[in-house]
């Protein structure tokens, strides 16, 4: 452990930060399949995990990768996989399985240009809606999106923690630029008390219920091979985990999947509010695009223009109430995104009862939105 006086500053890539964060959070099983631009996460974990008592396996495809980590998680490991665009599409059925079986796991999706094979080496933000609605059926999601290398490290830890705490699949978004850019960061010291460990049941096996009856509470959970011999199925199930066709039991299960998210919004939602207090014009941006947004806002503020930036670090659940509160005095919002209106649509839905004007900036050609692009938009809006 480094001494506090000695700064532990390293030059690190975004994807490496995710891998290092995973190790810090206690991830001890990773299964993955190579895909640009996420491959470094797998490469680094293939080096680090076996040295740290963990295991790495390269599976035959992304479907096998998500399946293997869910199996590993049910057997008691903290697990992660990392992928991008096409691989993320392949994982959708498994993501739904992790959610209905309430199995903790983290899926990293380093976004690249689409659709299909698209632009593998270029950044994109066009999987925002897929993280929420990609798997069939209603399945509430927890999705985090950092905007720096340091935050990639921190949110990697947080993603693992939230997955363990809420017993679900947490998606950690990144993008090609964020994943590949290098920044000097001071690796925060790990506070072991902040690393969430699954609570083990102490009930006799015959009383054990794998799923809690009260959705507000996160219940103790047993792993395979600990004497509880529970059943896990992707079918709609009762609180013991056995399949059911009964409407009342189906309702209880679906209600729990929803409420374990909606009852914990305060714990789940993180946002960055930059100069929003007196802002008349807001820039709403996430991930790599928010770096340009912040720069543009800073430049505007230097000219004493009342411009602010609002950035969700938690994409889903969408920070609806916070947005409504913060946008009370906002007249116009600029929404830059590397997608065709995915964030914009959601923001419009949240602010539908206001008179706020929306100014989208959308690029899907593989290029980033620059501070100049946003400054230009601010100028237009001020006219």
């Amino acid at each position, binding site marked *: 452990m480094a001494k506090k006086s000695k700064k532990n500053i390293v030059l690190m890539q975004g994807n490496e930060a995710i891998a290092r964060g995973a190790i810090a959070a206690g991830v001890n*099983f990773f*299964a993955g399949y190579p895909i640009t631009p996420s491959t470094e996460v797998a490469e680094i974990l293939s080096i680090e995990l*076996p*040295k740290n*008592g963990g*295991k790495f*396996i390269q*599976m*035959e*495809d992304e*479907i*096998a*990768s998500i*399946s*293997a*980590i*869910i*199996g*590993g*998680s*049910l*057997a*008691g*490991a903290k*697990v992660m996989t990392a992928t991008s665009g096409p691989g993320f599409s392949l994982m959708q*059925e*498994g993501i739904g*399985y992790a959610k209905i079986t309430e199995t903790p796991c983290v899926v990293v999706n380093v976004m690249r240009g689409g659709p299909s094979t698209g632009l593998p080496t270029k950044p994109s933000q066009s999987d925002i809606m897929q993280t929420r609605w990609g798997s069939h059926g209603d399945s509430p999601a927890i999705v985090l999106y950092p905007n720096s290398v340091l935050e990639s490290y921190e949110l990697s830890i947080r993603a693992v923690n939230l997955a363990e705490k809420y017993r679900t699949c947490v998606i950690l978004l990144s993008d090609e630029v964020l994943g590949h850019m290098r920044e000097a960061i001071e690796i925060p010291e790990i506070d072991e008390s902040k690393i969430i460990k699954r609570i083990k049941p102490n009930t006799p096996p015959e009383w054990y219920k794998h799923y809690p009856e009260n959705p507000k509470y996160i219940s103790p959970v047993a792993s*395979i*091979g*600990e*004497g*509880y*011999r*529970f*059943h*896990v*199925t*992707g*079918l709609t199930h009762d609180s013991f985990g*056995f*399949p059911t066709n009964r409407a009342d039991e189906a309702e209880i299960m679906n209600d729990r999947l929803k409420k374990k998210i909606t009852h914990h919004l305060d714990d789940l939602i993180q946002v960055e509010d930059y100069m929003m207090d007196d802002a008349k014009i807001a820039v709403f941006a996430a991930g790599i695009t928010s770096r340009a947004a912040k720069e543009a806002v800073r430049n505007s503020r230097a000219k004493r223009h009342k411009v602010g930036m609002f950035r969700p670090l938690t994409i889903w659940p969408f920070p609806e109430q916070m947005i409504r509160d913060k946008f009370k005095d906002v007249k116009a919002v600029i929404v830059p995104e590397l997608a065709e209106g995915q964030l914009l649509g959601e923001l419009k839905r949240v602010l539908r009862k206001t008179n706020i004007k929306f100014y989208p900036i959308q690029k899907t050609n593989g290029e980033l939105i620059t501070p100049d692009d946003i400054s230009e938009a601010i100028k237009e809006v001020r006219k």
Partner: protein
Amino acid sequence: MKIPQKRVHKFLRHGKKFPHVWCPGCSNGIVLGAIIRAVDELGYEKDDMAMVSGIGCSSRMPVYVDFNTLHTLHGRALAYATGVKMVKPEMNVCVVTGDGDSTAIGGNHLIHAARRNIDLTVIVINNNIYGMTGGQYSPTTPTGDFATTTPYGNIDPVFDICKLAEGAGATFVARTTAYHVVEAQSIIKQAFEHKGFSIVEIVSACPVIYGKLNKKGDAPAMMRDMKERAIPVKAFEKLTPEQVGNKYSRGILVNIKKPEYTAEYTKLMDSLQPQKGDK
């Protein structure tokens, strides 16, 4: 009788999950019986047993056994089982799957699990049809046979599951039938004891769907068919091509030793630990 009913009941979620979903005359119950009698003979603890399945008639089996049970996605049982085995190598991990689940949608996982030689025991119940969805043709539906999606007769050539597994690197490969239930139990037992990837194809009867569509008669008639067509492997090898006809071999087809995957990974981890004297 060495195994009275109650001893078998110990391994079942008896009284809770029965009656089962399988049709009259289905072979799945026979295979379930053979698996749990093999586990009983081996003296494995229920806590140390994991049964993993995909989707289909055979894949409904885990809900009935009092093991650690995992009913996963269509075709993916082997990938889930790989994750369980990697994290808990000390457990006995058994995969129960069907012909469609393991060789169509799950074919990729089958060949790669076999290639790795990971210590999983795979029971493939081959009934030559997709039963759960009502009788569509699978990769093992014989050419010329009928299914709800081959109304004019099947033109697809078939997979030989055992040859496929052998070609992919499985170190224990066997075939038997639901009729040869004592042999099935003995082979399953040996498959469990084998350190490495083991696969047992059990030819089974689906009289209600496959049998009906192809005029194979009732369940006893289909069992008689197994009795006549399944030839012990040694005798089968002596048959001329003319004598083979529609017969197939039964018994242990491959039984070789190769490094097992999770053991190799443990070795790799050990080799990375700092040696004494290293700083």
